[in-house]
């Protein structure tokens, strides 16, 4: 972004990568897949690179409002400094925070989750999915992210993306408004769960596996980690893959 700005350019959209997308080995693959799609389609975009920092979402949900607002203030300063207008991100937590919580602190942007962005690209014909790709007729189940679904009413965009692949989309019993959390939201990602009968992700993975789907589609880095761990614990990682919708498109398009 700094370079583009130096050249006096303003990108079509800023891609907010997020901490998981930057550091987590598994989720970096999602970042790369999404970037490949953006390149293929020819969307002019920029990233903040080292200037990007945590939105503060986990700090805020764990109760540390000071830390959240410090993060928000510095991020908003950077974003406003580059005159950013439109942001796309693959992380529902970053999406929710920047979209709903930054405006009150002086950060007003058009914020889009990558599932909606991909759906728009498909609808506009900028991504032309080839039918009969790798996922043609394959059973896929989509796990709703709480921060996309209930938090922001985005239920259909990721499903429409998957349907565009001619895949066999099967729903879990608990889906959409009744979707079951992966167990990582509300800063749970960063501590052990409280004592109980079961881990939340085990319960959810069992439900996903019971659909018989070969692919569990997710649209959130936390869901990705929790569902992958769940599948691994059930020793099913050879038969069942957990994939982000951006990866699924990239794979289908052989990017």
């Amino acid at each position, binding site marked *: 972004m700094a370079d583009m700005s130096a050249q006096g350019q303003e990108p079509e959209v800023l891609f907010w990568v997020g901490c998981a997308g930057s550091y987590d080995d598994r989720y970096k693959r999602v970042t790369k897949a999404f970037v490949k799609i953006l390149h293929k389609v020819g969307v002019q*975009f920029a*990233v903040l690179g*080292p200037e990007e920092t945590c939105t503060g979402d986990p700090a805020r949900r*764990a*109760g540390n409002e000071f830390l959240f607002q410090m993060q928000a203030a510095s991020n908003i300063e950077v974003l406003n400094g580059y005159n950013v207008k439109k942001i796309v991100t693959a992380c529902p937590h970053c999406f929710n925070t920047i979209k709903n919580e930054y405006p009150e602190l002086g950060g007003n942007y058009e914020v889009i989750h990558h599932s909606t962005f991909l759906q728009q690209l498909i609808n506009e014909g900028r991504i032309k999915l080839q039918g009969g790709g790798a996922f043609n007729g394959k059973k896929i189940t989509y796990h709703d992210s709480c921060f996309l679904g209930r938090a922001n009413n985005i239920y259909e965009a990721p499903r429409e993306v998957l349907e565009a692949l001619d895949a066999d989309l099967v729903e879990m019993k608990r889906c959409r408004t009744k979707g079951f959390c992966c167990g990582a939201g509300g800063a749970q990602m*960063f501590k052990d769960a409280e004592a109980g009968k079961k881990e939340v992700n085990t*319960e*959810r993975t069992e439900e996903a596996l019971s659909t018989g789907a070969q692919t569990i589609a997710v649209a959130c880095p936390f869901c990705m980690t929790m569902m992958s761990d769940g599948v691994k614990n059930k020793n099913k990682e050879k038969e069942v893959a957990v994939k982000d919708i951006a990866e699924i498109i990239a794979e289908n398009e052989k990017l």
Partner: protein
Amino acid sequence: MGLIQQIVFLLVLAIAGYMLYRRISRIRQNILLGKEGKHNDQPSVRSKNMLLVAFGQKKMFKKFIPAFLHLCIYVGFIVINLEVLEFVLAGIFGTHRIFAPTLGSFYTIPINIFEFLAVTVILSCVFFLLRRNVLPIKRFNARELTAWPKLDANIILVVEIILMFAILTMNATDQILQDRPDANYPDTGYLFFSGLFIPLFEGMSTRSLIFVERFAWWFHIIGILGFAIYITYSKHLHIFMAFPQTYYARIAPKGKMDNMPAVTKEVQIMLGAQPENGDDTEAEEVGRFGAKDVNDLDWRDIMGAYACTECGRCTAECPANQTGKKLSPRKIMMDTRDRSEEVGKSLQKGGKGLEDGKSLLDDYIQREEINACTSCNACVEACPININPLAIILQLRRYVAMEEAQSPPAWNAMFSNVENNFAPWKFAPTDRFNWADELADETGGTQKESQE
């Protein structure tokens, strides 16, 4: 009806009215223990929510059978109250069936409709009693449903059944009395449902019949007044509170957490910026960061606690609860109400109120409960009247994190990572862009340049 009966009726009405007034003022004061939040913007959106969710029961219809039976009781409750209007007029003016002569043969129709509704109420209540006490429905057997909440629910259902039977008994004996030349009861026409009970009373003398009819009348009206007072102590208060609750409920996206302007100010000062409201001389009372007790909550959250029917749909959907953790959103609401009641009672007696050495956090709600929440909003989505247990949980967490710095150690570690490394994980900030190099290696291109 004699003059003595009229006087007794007016007395009963006055006493019940006074008791209700005192109880309602108490609840109002308990709710206003909370902080003064403004929730009356966008009145058209709010009215629409109230109309759809409370009046129209929209969110109940996620489950058809209980929703339908609940609707029967709800409609029955509202419509049968029209008959209570006649009761009250009769009580005041010493008349009997004041509308019967004026409405003529039309009078038969509304009374038959009321009787039909009374029967649907009875059937629904019987079904609900069975569901609660016989069927193994998990949300009716949770650990927070101790003796009183269980009893409360059953009392309500049984009382409703008895009150409906009182109406039917009254109408049955009334119909027999209409045919007795020594009774002089106005003609109501044939009433179908109470007509079924006529054989039970037919053999009785006119005197006994008049006694039974009058007894049922008094029983019903005193029952209703008593019930009105009772529900102010009961979870059943939702029949009134659902309306303000849905009106004042949050209308922002569920994912949005409420901002803390006091913190914004501090952060601005810390970052060396002038606070937006330049006039800083006015010392503003900041109070506590987050919530430790009910007075730190928004008044809306306490109102929610009084509106809660303890149906447990929130808890049934909660992922933490479903996997055996201690958190139950319903318990959060019940605890909030119990604590408000406790403080209110103490204040009423001139006691210590909030300063009784107890607090909502720890004495009612345990840290283990609030720490288990994934903020997934399932409870908020599930509530039939838009109560938000999550708002209370997050306020309690704020107190623990900011006032006490007693968050779980792993969260404290995450906080320091965000502070020092600008990410919740301990990675070097300079490595944030490594993925682009990896991508360039994979594609053999120079993609990094084009992105930076």
